[in-house]
């Protein structure tokens, strides 16, 4: 037994042993390398990214590697969470360059906490025409907490229930009002119906009915009176507009009046003509008086010349002391 050759335990040989072994090795290497590459791709190692910093008061629930979504699509990953100098939480997010176009200067970021404590970071871009978000931008994140609403909701509900209880109490205003409504409806069903309900007691209702009856009688008499007034009006009509009435005579008088007016107009025209002639006479008289003025001026100048002549003679006549000129 001790003399066995060392190679004896090798079982029957396998065909193409080395090739198969090489294939298996290659397969394993391929799988391992492929897995590593796939995981690296899945982690976004090969994507060029830009950095976005979200500042929150509380980063509870946010984990490294979680997604930031836009319209439900993951467009960024949380890379780090750190505490800033002022105590706020800084959430550093890597956004692939190809997805960064969804983020704009005016984008809003929210950190929403669900009912079971799950946290989601969401981005909203209202105006896609705004300039794109720069690399390394720092934005404040709005925190929306579904559970934060619950205490308020409970308080509001409690108030509501308290009000409802107060309303439905036996001594509440609503109950009293309902009782009154019931009494009113009982009265409605009574003998005087809605009238009894309105007036409060049956006596007044009776009075009202009596008043109504008397009003009816009065209305009947008013009807008779109106008939008589109608007859009166018909008579007056005949008096005024009939063939012998006032109106035709009035019309004839008006015709006569218009004839008289035409005569008066003719007379006035003749007067006009007379006046025009008188005006022409007056014009002639004015021309004549203008000629008289000229004549007088000429006479005056002749007289002045004569006076000058006499003065001249007097100067030249040295013996004459009497310079007075006497006109004879």
């Amino acid at each position: 037994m001790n003399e066995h050759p060392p190679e004896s335990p090798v079982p029957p040989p396998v065909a193409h042993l080395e090739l198969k072994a090489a294939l298996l090795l290659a397969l394993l290497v391929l799988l391992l390398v492929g897995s590593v590459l796939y995981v690296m791709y899945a982690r976004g190692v090969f994507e060029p990214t830009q950095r976005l910093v979200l500042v929150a008061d509380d980063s509870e629930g946010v984990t490294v590697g979680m997604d930031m979504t836009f319209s439900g699509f993951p467009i960024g990953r949380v890379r780090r969470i750190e505490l800033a100098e002022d105590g706020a939480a800084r959430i550093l997010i890597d956004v692939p360059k190809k997805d960064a176009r969804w983020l704009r200067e005016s984008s809003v970021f929210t950190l929403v906490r669900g009912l079971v404590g799950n946290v989601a970071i969401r981005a909203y871009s209202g105006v896609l025409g705004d300039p794109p978000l720069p690399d390394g931008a720092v934005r404040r994140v709005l925190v929306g907490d579904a559970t934060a609403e619950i205490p308020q909701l409970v308080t509001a509900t409690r108030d509501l229930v308290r009000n409802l209880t107060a309303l439905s109490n036996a001594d509440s205003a609503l109950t009293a009002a309902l009782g009154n409504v019931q009494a009113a409806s009982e009265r409605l069903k009574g003998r005087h119906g809605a009238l009894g309900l309105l007036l409060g007691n049956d006596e007044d209702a009776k009075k009202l009915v009596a008043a109504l009856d008397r009003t009816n009688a009065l209305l009947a008499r008013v009807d008779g009176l109106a008939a008589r007034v109608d007859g009166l009006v018909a008579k007056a009509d005949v008096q005024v507009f009939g063939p012998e009435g006032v109106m035709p005579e009035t019309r004839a008088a008006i015709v006569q009046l218009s004839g008289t007016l035409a005569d008066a107009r003719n007379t006035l025209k003749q007067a006009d003509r007379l006046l025009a002639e008188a005006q022409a006479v007056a014009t002639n008289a004015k021309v004549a008086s203008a000629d008289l003025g000229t004549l007088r001026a000429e006479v005056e100048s002749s007289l002045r010349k004569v006076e000058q002549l006499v003065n001249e003679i007097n100067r030249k006549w040295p013996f004459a002391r009497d310079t007075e000129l006497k006109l004879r």
Partner: protein
Amino acid sequence: MAPTLSPPGALTDMGRALLRWFGGWWRVVHLGAQLLVLALSPSSYTRANRLAMAHHIVVGTAPMLLWFTLLSSLISLVIIRIVVVTAASYGLSQYALQMVVRVLVLELIPLTAAIFVALRIGLPDGRELARMRLRGELDALRQHGLDPLAHEVLPRTLAGAFAVLMLAAVAGLVTLVLAYLTVHGFTPGAFERYTRTVGQVFSPAVTLIFTIKTFLLALAVSLIPVASAIYDLPHGKARTSAEVRALVRLFLMMLLIEAASLVGNYY
């Protein structure tokens, strides 16, 4: 062995057992170190040794690969279906995929592959080596100037480790594909989102722990049965056979590795 022992005798016996237990583990570690050195030295890869490695790899892994893949696919499919349907019924379907990847790819498949290889390759190899040692074939090799560690033990160990990695890789890939098909159906449209989810699960820390765990499992499965076979006492001093003791040691080791990886991942 005496049926009844006086208390001092029992104490001595316990001490001796403890010492033996530690000695056993020490030998495993020592052998592991020796084999690691051998695996890293080029002189171990002579043509004869390469042929022996090729033989063990092909004979060990190839027949198992198909069966294991089929079996793990079936179980994975059932588990994926259960997880997805349950999560959907609670309205948590966005977490179903992550959970499937974590539970199956990260935890169950490496463990299953290790157990499978331990039962199909590690333990039979250990038995074979023990038989060779009993027959004196290893001593004969040594007399011929050949190192039995390099010539008989190293190829088996490497083949065992290779089988674990291979099965885990193939089954993991198949499970990822099955998870995609179960959740999204036969459409390539959801590939981006699925890849993102997988990327979220495989964070650097998780990936590192997963890799280390798988390598340690492969090492344990291929090393411990062989070490037990080479070093354990052949005569019937212990109540259990060397094989069962190797199995217990192996499962203890796997439990430790798995626990350590869980602690690393989730604490």
